């Protein structure tokens, strides 16, 4: 079995709500890491990861200028801020959930991890 690392080794992010939808920004620490994200972190992969929370669809946007992918997860908030019965009504924690996703160790990992100072 391949050794795994968490997505957070090569990226950081933030999530928030838009009505009943949530967005998750995944931001690479380096250009090499961004290239890996673009090639590997597809909308389909994110959709299958979040399948237990039943998003109706997932859309991916690119912001190469800030080395980021932005995912829209539609209808994932079980009603959103006003109607959701969940503790995380606004999807505030979804970014950390995605960043905890196990990934295969990418080739050239040392060029993808956080370089200080930021």
């Amino acid at each position: 079995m391949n050794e795994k690392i968490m997505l957070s080794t090569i990226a950081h992010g933030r999530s928030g709500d838009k009505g009943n939808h949530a967005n998750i920004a995944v931001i690479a620490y380096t250009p090499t890491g961004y290239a890996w994200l673009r090639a590997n972190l597809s909308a389909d992969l994110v959709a299958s990861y979040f399948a237990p929370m039943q998003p109706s669809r997932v859309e991916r946007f690119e912001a190469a200028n800030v080395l980021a992918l932005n995912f829209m997860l539609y209808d994932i908030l079980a009603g959103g801020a006003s109607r959701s019965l969940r503790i995380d009504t606004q999807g505030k924690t979804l970014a950390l959930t995605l960043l905890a996703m196990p990934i295969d160790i990418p080739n050239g990992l040392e060029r993808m991890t956080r370089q200080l100072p930021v």
Partner: protein
Amino acid sequence: MSTLRIGNACGFWGDSIDAPIRLAERGRLDYLTLEYLAELTMSILALQKQRDPEAGYAGDFLDMLERLTSILTKQPDLKIITNAGGMNPLSCARKAKAILDKAGLIKKIAVVSGDDLLPQLDTLLKLHPLTNLDTGADLASIRQRVVSANAYLGAQPIAKALASGASIVITGRVADASLTVGPAAYAFGWDWSDWDRLCGASVAGHLIECGAQVCGGLWCNWRDVQDYSDIGYPYTDIAPDGSFTITSDAGPGVNRETLIEQLLYEVGDPARYLTPDVVADFTSVSLEHVNTRTMRVQSAKGKPATDTYKVSIAYRDGYSASGTLVIAGPDAVAKAKRAGAALLQRIGCTFDRSNIEYLGAGACAPGIVTAPGNPPEVVMRVAMHDQQKAKIERFAKEFAPLVTSGPPGVTGYTTGRPAVREVFAYWPALIAKSAVQSCVEMLS
């Protein structure tokens, strides 16, 4: 002209009550903005106004203004722009004037209104269907349950108020970024079709609108925050060409990571961030490190604004309540699950919607993250929603008995019965800008 400094020290109703004082003292601002209105705040304010025609605004702003009077005395040119007016900006402005009068401060106060569409909703509906942006449903299906309907106005009425000499502008619903775009457009005399500059100021406004969130708040690399107790709040220095810097007045400062996390916060397509003032392309900006407190943002490219305003409608949608109990000791999760099942059976009726979750065992990402091993305790949280208030009241009464009649290790029941609250659902829509008349009024 040199740069214009705008600071935001309130990201939501409930934000730090000391931040505006500190930011105004430390930041030497031209403008202080204070943002109070979340998506559904207006529904709560609308009901307050129904009960009391003088109510319906964010009362916290008045407490804040009172505390700011000494700073306004020391910094007579400091101007304040806030959406604290909510459903009743005029009443809010009158009370603000009374506070300033008492402090011996003479300030021109402007009121921006026209966002409230409720009074003419039925007339508007004849020409503007206000279909639900998400579902395509017709507003007629919930018309009788609507409690508030507000268009997100843009920066133009704010700039107009400033041009009329206002030093305090109190608005109803406006787009958050417009609180920043208004003063910049006014100060630099930008044309309302100068899309790139409007885009620059919109990006600046978006970055500071949530206060501390661009200054290290929520930052993934939280270990790098040495002291959360003095987290910074942001100000932006906007140049006449629309480029700007973002600076934090304290804490870990603003850096590339904190800035990008906030740039994409609550954003859909980053190349098309819609505001009433411009279609902002967040993918066009370039970032540059200035120092440990400050980042520079430039080269923003905007596209023409759309011909519609976003409308936020809230309607009555039944009742809900939620209660929590702590279940501790061995097999906490298994015991909590038995308790939850027993509760549902005892109540004996079905609800429109219900949810039982176990905090500490992966509730924030149900089905994706699970607790490793056997946590020493979990919080069982039960939430119910139904159109019938009586059912929710029954649930609230049946919750407590689990303290004596459930599995062992139940505790943490000190806050009394779960509160039954009215639910207001959110209905996003668009309306032609031509159907909405914004209004700027100077308080004499």
